[in-house]
């Protein structure tokens, strides 16, 4: 198997990212995103097992009551994100099943923290009306005040927590 390719120069990757975002603004009149699709996936799954509950909870009903929550531009965009990641990883020789963790943490703990951290982010993204893709990147490029407040808060939160989870990574 050939060795994995190097990553792109970060500034070049950034310019490419910015151009993708700009094209989204120009062609679709909207930005990129991720967490909104996750919410819709969750509501869709819940609709299968508890459809009446989805109708009763207002936030869930807003996307799932009388319509298919998956029938949304963001869900398709996220599908594209997954495909793009897959193809890029494959072409660069980075497509392999592995669990990334630091040397001092067990697999079980890493999985638990991935789940817990993910859940926290899912909740946070609902509060902020977006995540780093939708708010920080897209809202930030449009100079929205809320997006910039959000972006700086993300960095603050990450730096503040880093020391406490250092055993997970180092």
């Amino acid at each position, binding site marked *: 198997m050939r060795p994995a390719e190097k990553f792109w120069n970060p500034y070049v990757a950034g310019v490419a990212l910015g151009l993708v975002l700009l094209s989204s603004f120009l062609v679709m009149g909207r930005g990129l995103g991720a967490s909104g699709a996750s919410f819709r996936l969750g509501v869709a799954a819940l609709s299968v097992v508890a459809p009446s509950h989805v109708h009763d909870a207002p936030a869930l009903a807003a996307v799932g009551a009388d319509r298919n929550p998956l029938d949304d531009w963001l869900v398709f965009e996220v599908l594209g994100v997954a495909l793009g990641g897959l193809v890029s990883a494959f072409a660069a020789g980075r497509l392999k099943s592995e669990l990334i963790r630091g040397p001092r943490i067990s697999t079980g703990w890493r999985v638990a923290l991935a789940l817990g951290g993910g859940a926290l982010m899912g909740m946070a993204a609902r509060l902020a009306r977006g995540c780093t893709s939708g708010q920080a990147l897209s809202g930030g*490029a*449009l100079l929205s005040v809320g997006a910039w407040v959000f972006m700086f*808060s993300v960095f603050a*939160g990450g730096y503040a927590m880093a020391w406490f989870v250092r055993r997970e990574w180092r």
Partner: protein
Amino acid sequence: MMFPFEVLSAAGREVGLVVGVLIGFAFGFVLERAGFGRADKLVGQFYGNDMTVLKVMFTGIVTAMLGIVILDGVGIVDLRAVSDHAASITYLWPMLVGGLLLGVGFVVSGYCPGTSIVAMASGKIDGLFTVVGVIVGSVAMGELQPALGGWFTSGDLGNLYLYDLVGVPPMIVALAVTAMALAMFAGGERIERWLRGARAPAAERRPRLAAWGGLATAAVLGLATLLVPARGATTVRRTVAIDAVDLARRVVSRPWSVRVLDLREKRKCVEARVPGAECTPAKELGRLELGQSGSTRDLVLVGDGDVRTIPAPVVGYPGRVHALRGGFSSWRKFALTAPAPPGPRATAAEREVFRLRSGLHAAFTGVRAPPPPPPSSSGAPRRRGGGQGGCS
């Protein structure tokens, strides 16, 4: 050529969804190429040894920002129209707290929601579990939302942008943001060099300088767009309609965010007008010098009927220009006519509108309306529109 193409209209909806997949593909591809499909690269940012997140994110933001602001400067795109549609309303407190929590979740899980998808797609099991966590967490918050009550929409500053806050043209803010980003990059390189103990190889430095140079050049050249005559000097601009009920809510709860200009005959305006409205018949608009004012307040034009196109003296106004749908007659029907009390099965929204209307009616005519009957059940909590954003 019309930007944005708005391919999501009914006829082209399928095309829009396909375009969505393509744009997402490009997004995911670039993220993976940047190394963001791996937690070890991402969390390096928070331990100081790998500034890639900072570099990629801010280069991306600055690139897209310069692109859209410059296109707005030359008149191809309407920045505010795109932003109002693509960016969410600023809810200050949930966004601040949400940001902190997301940052915590980021360093705990090793990914952000978008990169976790890329990680999962490239086979990372920790990425997969993060994706599951994000799904569960967002639905959980959906369930909790009613319990948060008004806090979920607190700090509502509307569609507020940095250039509104400071009161300068967007291009100036874009220049400042570019300068800040370049300063951060230079600082980041210093930190990395200090931790690595050596300069980056030439193969890395050349593209970096090219990117920095390109962004700086674009920002400075973009200043030339300030010389382009303001949009509307040759084209006709349309007002954005606002309904009486929305105007009433704003006038009652956020009067500082609107400036109401009554364009009718002075006599009629003095007799009865929207609270806080200025009586400025159409021919007197020129002396307000609206082209020179700041953009933090939204203008609302009130005519006898609809005001569809922006009057010439108002065209240079840098903020949003609304017109009251139906003109003053609709306000008269809404605020100056006694509302019918809601029945026992009225929704919370109908109750709120009744309260608003009876309050306005009482203030104008001195007649107090009877209180609405008590609700027959606890009822669903009032759901304010959550605003559109890149993700919701």
